[in-house]
């Protein structure tokens, strides 16, 4: 089957249900080792090896297991999952079905971000067709005892529900707040049961890997980052859109594809990490410049301090409010940024803010809190010419006595 889009792996052609059929032929063990050998890493941002995750769930002893697909795409500047959800939903569901086959789960959830509510009719139609085709439901494709179905649950627009344990809390009907880890979802996930939880983009890779083999998959990308990455390119460029690129591509090459000239900065890392021209030779991959999937281009007329302010304002609203470093730290960074913008921030206070950023990165409860200072730290470090520090020492409210 021809693909509408061009791409080496995700957008490469594959017959409908070829992955599932192949998986059933191979058997659980072989699928598991194929996924493991492929070196596929989670595409949500953290990059945890999918094979290891699946193996842990498959090995867990439990009366129930679950497969959950994280479609709560909310990272600033990402819109790549919506392409999969609207153009390739069947293939993504296939990935979930294969995960269920391998792990022994009988129930799956697609956790769809609230803002993508309009995709519901389409996605349900696809699921309905898959049930008709016998790839969902009881005894899938005639395989006795292989029962699996998928339910779509809607989020309500909280960014933090993209964090896997926050997502599970939300799925269970609680406030979307990340849990303590350990225990991890692989043994204590949805309702306390072992749960395979992967990103939309991770799942869509699966049918390709199963059908075409780990070796084929590994022929793309770099040594530690096999395969390709979907990038949502936006900002000051001629050709914004979603691109499938091989891991290892440099920022420079990417900007060429995007048709971006006179670029001052690019935000591409986790939670809005921004780099300047001097770093444009860096490669998109887990070992160098790891990204969740957004690439925002900032042209020469952009003020980077404003960019940082925009990111921090977003995080200030979207922190779940649970842990101190993230909840209280982001407003402090934001206030500090305003001082910097006004040229009123002294050097020693900036040091305090960097110390605070370190604390937030190290001591926040979840990955989102840990990466929330990234735009601040990267912009202040990489764009020193954009601000001036104050020479006057900061006045602190000192206690008497």
């Amino acid at each position: 089957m021809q693909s509408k889009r061009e791409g080496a792996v995700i957008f490469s052609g594959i017959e409908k249900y070829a992955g599932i059929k192949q998986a059933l032929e191979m058997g659980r063990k072989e699928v598991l080792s194929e996924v493991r050998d492929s070196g596929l890493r989670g595409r949500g941002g953290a990059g945890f090896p999918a094979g290891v995750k699946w193996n842990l769930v498959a090995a867990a002893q439990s009366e129930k297991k679950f497969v959950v697909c994280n479609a709560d795409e909310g990272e600033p500047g990402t819109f790549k999952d919506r392409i999969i959800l609207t153009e390739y939903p069947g293939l993504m569901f296939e990935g979930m079905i294969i995960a269920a086959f391998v792990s022994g789960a009988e129930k799956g959830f697609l956790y769809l971000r609230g803002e993508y509510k309009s995709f519901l009719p389409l996605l349900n139609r696809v699921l309905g067709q898959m049930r008709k085709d016998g790839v969902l439901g009881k005894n899938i494709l005639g395989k006795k005892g292989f029962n699996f179905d998928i339910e779509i649950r809607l989020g309500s627009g909280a960014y933090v529900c993209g964090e896997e344990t926050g997502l599970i809390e939300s799925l269970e009907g609680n406030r979307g707040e990340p849990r303590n880890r350990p225990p991890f979802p692989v043994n204590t996930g949805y309702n306390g049961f072992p749960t395979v939880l992967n990103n939309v983009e991770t799942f869509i890779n699966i049918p390709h890997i199963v059908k075409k083999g780990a070796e084929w998959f590994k022929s793309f990308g770099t040594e530690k980052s096999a395969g390709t990455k979907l990038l949502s390119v936006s900002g000051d460029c001629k050709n914004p859109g979603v691109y499938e690129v091989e891991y290892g591509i440099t920022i420079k090459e990417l900007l060429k594809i995007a048709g971006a000239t006179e670029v001052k900065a690019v935000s591409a890392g986790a939670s809005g990490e921004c780099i300047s021209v001097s770093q444009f030779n860096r490669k998109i991959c887990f070992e160098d410049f790891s990204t969740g999937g957004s690439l925002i281009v900032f042209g020469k007329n952009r003020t980077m301090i404003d960019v940082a302010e925009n990111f921090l304002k977003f995080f200030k609203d979207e922190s779940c409010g649970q842990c101190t470093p993230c909840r209280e730290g982001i407003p402090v960074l934001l206030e500090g940024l305003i001082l910097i913008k006004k040229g009123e921030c002294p050097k020693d206070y900036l040091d305090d803010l960097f110390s605070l950023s370190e604390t937030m990165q190290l001591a926040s409860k979840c990955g989102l809190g840990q990466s929330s200072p990234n735009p601040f730290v990267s912009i202040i470090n990489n764009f020193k010419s954009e601000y001036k520090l104050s020479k006057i020492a900061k006045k602190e409210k000192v206690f008497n006595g």
Partner: protein
Amino acid sequence: MDNSKEFGRDTSRAPISQRKQEFTEVEKGSIGGTITVTIDDMEVNVPMGTTILEAAKKVNVKIPTLCQHDDLCLAGVCRVCVVEVDKERTLQASCSYPIFNPIKVKTYSPQVRRARRNIIQLLLKNHYGDCYSCARNNNCELQALAKEYGVTSYKFGHIDKPRYEKDESSYAVVRDMNKCVLCRRCVRTCIDLQEVGVLEALDRGSKTKIGTYLDMPLNDVICINCGQCINRCPTGALKAKDPAEEVWKAIEDPNKHVIIQTAPSPRAAMGEEFGLKPGTSVTKKLNTAIKRVGFDKVFDTNFTADLTIMEEGTELLMRLKSVLVDKDESVKLPLFTSCSPGWVKFIEHFYPDRLNHLSTAKSPQQMFGAIVKTWYAKKNNVDPKKIVSVSLMPCSAKKFECERPEMNASGFKDVDYALTTRELAGMIKECGIDLPNLPESNFDDPLGIGSGAGLVFAATGGVMEAAIRTVYEIVTGKEVPFDGLRVTPVRGMDGIRKADLPINSALSQWKFLEGVVLKVMVGHGTANAKKIMDMLCEGKLNDYHFIEIMACPGGCLGGGGQPIPTTPKIREARAMAVYAEDEGLPYRKSHENPIVKQIYKEFLTEGPCGHLSHKLLHTAYLKRGKWIGKPRNKKYPKG
């Protein structure tokens, strides 16, 4: 086994991953069930799954905490307890990190100390209010942390005006969210420990705050006033409504006759406010202190506890007769105790259709109030109008109980002010009275004699024990068949306790009880009350006769007005003090209390549950339901 942990696990509705952690056999079994870890270069062997925090305690390393509490499920939200764990990329919250590998932990590396200092600075940033005007000054965990971590300035600034309005709508609990540090102990207390669920985090990000349903005032929601949240709040964000100023005014007014009744559990805990170790009973020293403060009379609530036993015990026997002999289906068993105002409000909200199981007897506090303004006033020739009736209670819900409009059968408000242990301690301290070193003195006559049975009301199971001591003897003419009158099956700290008491050789008047096995049950904490009520609704308690419920974990001695902090160990120590005091009292059974005998002879001449008793000592309840919003009955106080 630590009871509290069981308690928490039983009742927790927290997400599974955040409950007290349980582990699979495989996890426990590996390496013989224990593991050796290195904490600050010291090796310590601990059971698999122990948290770093617990392991550190074993080698005398104190890791600071804020959101962690021994009674509550894990949270790991304040991040004050972070430590460095080798092989982990980030710092880990030691309170919620279970040990399964031979890790190396550093609890005060430069990175850790920097993080802690920064986090404490962040907590202080939005903590509005001055320490010296705070109810928790010198007993505040945030203040202690600030001192321990050398806070000399507000590094990241400090809020200079309040963000929230104080919620003083409730008769019992005052909420000042400007002081809140969002540790969520109150949320976990209300949802998990008590299963009331009034408090939750609202909004998110920097706007997060703790609030009620739709952020309504506390008196408009289904708060039961138990005050357990107050006892677990690390700061002064939650406190009881303090009537000390009004009490001072009454004391200063020469035309007022100010009496105070002291409940048994504050007497077992008051010492803690003066630096004595938990479990030191100060009953008689407290009498001296109270007189020095300026109260005209100090009386013993144990007296009306005994009276409660006479009334409630009689009610039980009457109900038994109606059910067993008359087969009257309108009369309900099991009978539930009604001494705990938190529990009463809980059942009014959550099980309004089961109020007919609740004893109509007022609580000892209210009975006392009614007796003081009638019998006592008459006997001592005091105008009841001039009497200011104060009570020393372990409880915040008692404040609400005072305000219930039906509590004025004598024509006057039964009890005017309920002071908590903490509040009276404040009054005593203000007078410079050195409580631990005072001479002892007795209660005043005539309401100063209470039995040991009345005294043990302080602990969970106490009302049951007192009732059994009396009812058994009334029915059989013999003492309860327990060594030293210690009804041990109903003692202890298990959440729900059951006992069977076979009745043999009943006296002729009670022949219908011959051979009956009296089945009783005791529950404490409203989470356990909920379990018991659910059993009742499922028809599983049809063979039970009498059930004691106290709203607070541990019973009254763990009440919302007691000294802070509270832990399972502290509550156990208080219970021990109460039981020890009981052993030494001249009267151990309610029906032997000479004042009780006298009052039924002189005043309540129709006997327990007689006409006058019903008027003064019994009450009725309100089907509140879980209606939130505009009260349906405007006359009735909402909170």
